[in-house]
């Protein structure tokens, strides 16, 4: 009845030619990113990001790209098939857990379009930087924590380690020295020396026994002809006349000839740093406060990590008492009750005394708070703050007061103004745009230890 069926053979070229979804996928990806950006404060407020692996995958719920339609609510019930003996009253599921029904597939009921995407921490941080309006250059510097030594060649030096000996240049130096001292040699010797030098250029180092960095170790690989280069050790006594007289036709290397490649290791200070984050957990930390605090601590940690090899991080949460907590708890504990700021500082001092002696550790402490403190505690807080400033490279106090909340709350900024230490700094953060400038102002006071 119908004509012949047509079969279209698979052709690789076809498959590769038309990925028409590419444009739409790109567009979708952009929308995802926009959506993340819109919700970045919520996401960062809920995610542990400080000092975490940047390849970590984070699941981010996407609210921005739902496809809305008129649908029935979750609780409309329905009918389905059981396993053979369903009884009234049996529990068969949970409300609102309708699978992520993709509405536009024929026959699917328009389900709830709940949708999350995977984002790497790195991407999330990048978006956070955008949100905080960090300048591009600084962004990159902060993102790249150098995990290994990177080294760059920077010219040549007369001292160095064996492995970096530059044979070619060393041989050249010797020839130059020889030419300079030619008065004492006849032309034959010179010619020979030049020939020998050429050979020496190809020579390899080969002397496990002597740890003298000496050209006496230079031997010629291929030629059996020994020793035109070999010389006794005493030949290296600089300016030794014996050397020059004894070997008429030999012109051995001299320590001055040696040239080493100079390699500059990255400027990371070979040292330890501890970042001490102190936060007041008494008040309610709403999303915005969490976001501001977390991103500030994060920036601090990233920055310190770019400068020190070994960075440890400590979280101290305090209300009337202080405890050391994990990042998770740090941002999610809400305690009610009063606040003794001094308790947080004293805890920090305690931890420093126990684990991070200032002679071995570069200490960076920062305290975020909403400015509440019992007045009775102010003198004690001042005293502890001064003490902390004296042992830290940098100590800061940041008051987080999202706009509109600062008129009826107390503030510690005035109290801390009395602290004279040059490495103590206070900042007021009212909106996310303040984070970066405050952060920079804070770091400007850094007193790197001698």
């Amino acid at each position: 009845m119908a004509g012949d069926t047509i079969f279209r053979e698979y052709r690789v070229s076809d498959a590769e030619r038309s990925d028409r979804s590419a444009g739409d996928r790109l567009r979708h990806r952009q929308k995802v990113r926009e959506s993340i950006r819109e919700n970045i404060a919520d996401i960062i407020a809920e995610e542990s990001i400080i000092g975490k692996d940047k390849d970590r995958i984070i699941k981010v719920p996407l609210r921005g790209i739902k496809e809305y339609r008129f649908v029935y609510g979750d609780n409309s019930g329905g009918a389905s098939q059981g396993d053979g003996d369903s009884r009234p009253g049996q529990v068969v599921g949970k409300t609102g857990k309708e699978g992520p029904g993709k509405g536009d597939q024929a026959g699917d009921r328009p389900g709830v379009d709940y949708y999350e995407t995977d984002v790497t921490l790195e991407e999330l941080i990048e978006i956070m930087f955008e949100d905080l309006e960090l300048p591009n250059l600084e962004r990159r510097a902060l993102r790249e924590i150098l995990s290994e030594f990177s080294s760059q060649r920077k010219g040549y030096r007369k001292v160095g380690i064996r492995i970096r000996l530059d044979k070619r240049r060393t041989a050249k130096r010797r020839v130059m020295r020889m030419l300079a001292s030619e008065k004492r040699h006849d032309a034959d010797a010179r010619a020979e020396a030049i020939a020998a030098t050429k050979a020496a250029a190809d020579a390899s180092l080969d002397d496990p026994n002597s740890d003298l960095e000496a050209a006496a170790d230079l031997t010629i690989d291929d030629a059996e002809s020994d020793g035109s280069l070999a010389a006794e050790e005493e030949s290296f006594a600089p300016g030794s006349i014996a050397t020059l007289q004894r070997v008429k036709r030999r012109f051995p290397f001299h320590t001055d000839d040696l040239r080493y490649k100079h390699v500059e290791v990255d400027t990371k200070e070979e040292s330890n740093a501890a970042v001490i984050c102190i936060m007041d957990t008494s008040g309610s930390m709403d999303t915005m406060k969490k976001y501001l605090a977390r991103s500030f601590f994060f920036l601090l940690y990233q920055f310190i990590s770019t400068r020190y090899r070994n960075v440890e991080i400590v979280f101290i949460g305090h209300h009337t008492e202080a405890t050391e907590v994990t990042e998770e708890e740090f941002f999610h504990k809400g305690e009610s009750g009063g606040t003794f700021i001094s308790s947080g500082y004293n805890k920090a001092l305690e931890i420093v005394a126990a684990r991070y002696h200032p002679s071995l550790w570069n200490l960076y402490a920062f305290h975020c708070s909403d400015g509440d403190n019992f007045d009775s505690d102010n003198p004690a807080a001042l005293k502890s703050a001064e003490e902390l400033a004296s042992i830290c490279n940098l100590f800061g106090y940041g008051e987080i007061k999202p706009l509109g909340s600062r008129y009826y709350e107390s503030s510690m900024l005035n109290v801390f103004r009395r602290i004279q230490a040059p490495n103590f700094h206070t900042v007021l953060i009212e909106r996310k745009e303040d984070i970066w400038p405050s952060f920079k102002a804070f770091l400007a006071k850094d007193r790197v230890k001698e």
Partner: protein
Amino acid sequence: MSASSVSAGANARDTTWSLDDLVRWDERIRAKIDEFGLSYYPQEFELCDHTGMLGYMAYNGMPSHYPHWSYGKSYEKLKTLYDHGVSGLPYEMVINSNPAIAYLMRDNSLLLQILTMAHVYGHNDFFRNNFTFTSATRAELTIENYKAAAMRVRRYVEDPSIGIEKVERVLDAAHALNWQCRRNFAIKKLTPQEQIDRAIQTTQGHPDPFQKIHARRVVEEPDLHKVPIEPDEDLLLFIRDHNPFLADWEKDLLTIVAHEAKYFISLMETKIMNEGWASYWHKRILESLGLEQGLYLEFIVRHNQVVRPIPGQINPYHLGLKVWEDIYRRYTNPTAEEIKRDGPPAKSGLEKLFEVREVERDSSFLRRFLTEDLMREMDIFEYEARGEELVVSKVADDAGWREVKETLIKNVGTNSIPVLKIEDADFGQNRTLYVKHYHDGRDLHLEYAEKSLAYLQRLWGREVVLETVLEGKRSLLCSNDRGFSVRSLK
């Protein structure tokens, strides 16, 4: 388009067959089909790999389709599911066009290809014969229409005076409303003039020979200036025709989206029948092909993967197949009890199958042919939300099976989409659009309603109000420039 999937692991490329094998098997399958008396459009099979298949799935099988980010989204989603092995790829996807186009995965085994082809012919026959499709779509134009629409949309995107942002604004809104349209295309839609005539007709009533002794009838003058005269379900088309501020390209986009929705509404309306029908025929065909043992065993395994019941869900393949098989049985081999109740069958089994395949859609199909015995056998139950949990409320026993069936029917096809109709396009004499939700006991999802209403406002360009029932109270949802509000009505 229709798709089913088998969870296949990372199958290595199966090279035990060649294209010639497929051609040969196709001939054998078609011989069987002709024998059974199915009628179908010419068929094209295209071999593709899994990325190609994902691409086709994202665009619902269409060889060409206009661009929109939501298709990128569904591609990503499908790919994620596929990469994590949550779902296998469909081993059959066929679109309702003339010629019908279906895709075969080149990595599938020979048996899967044979099974797929047989299954595809089932769909093909259904598309060609079921009234839902014949009244809603013209299969010979499908591909061309999509292609032309895709080209036009691309042109709007590239047009410097329009651009992707504006196109997206309209498409996003149109996609949100695209299913708010008529569900049964066999019912003719009256033109405005015809509606006016009908309104006059109904108010005049029929001539009454005893008018003299009857009390005078109160004649209500119909409001012939109201727009629309009769409530209108086609939201997008209504806006296209009644919003004077839309540019031609915007109207075109609304037309394209509305047109495509028609295609999908038909598929939704017949999902259970259609999958059941295709499964029924692939089974009968493969059983009659005389497969050698190895192939036959694989067929049994694959077939059962597809049509197995899934506890906690309704698997349309399973439910549909069960009902079709039962219809056939009742007309070829009824029990004594059935003969006593219904009389001897007046038609042969095949005749009955073909008749049902032509004139029913899911809701009527289940209403008529899903018997109490079948429901009991399949253990279909009704559940409802109690607090946080979904709890079985009724099961298919003597007392409850009718209600369970009602609930099931309420959730098949387009019955799971709320019915919204435009009642008045000039509400309060300031061009406010008044839409009414025909409430059937199920409340709207409020967050979704709010967002969708905002889209409606975007297209209409003026305030829109939606009358609905929330927790038993008549309510009015409003969306205008000042935002969204909910009011209770007395």
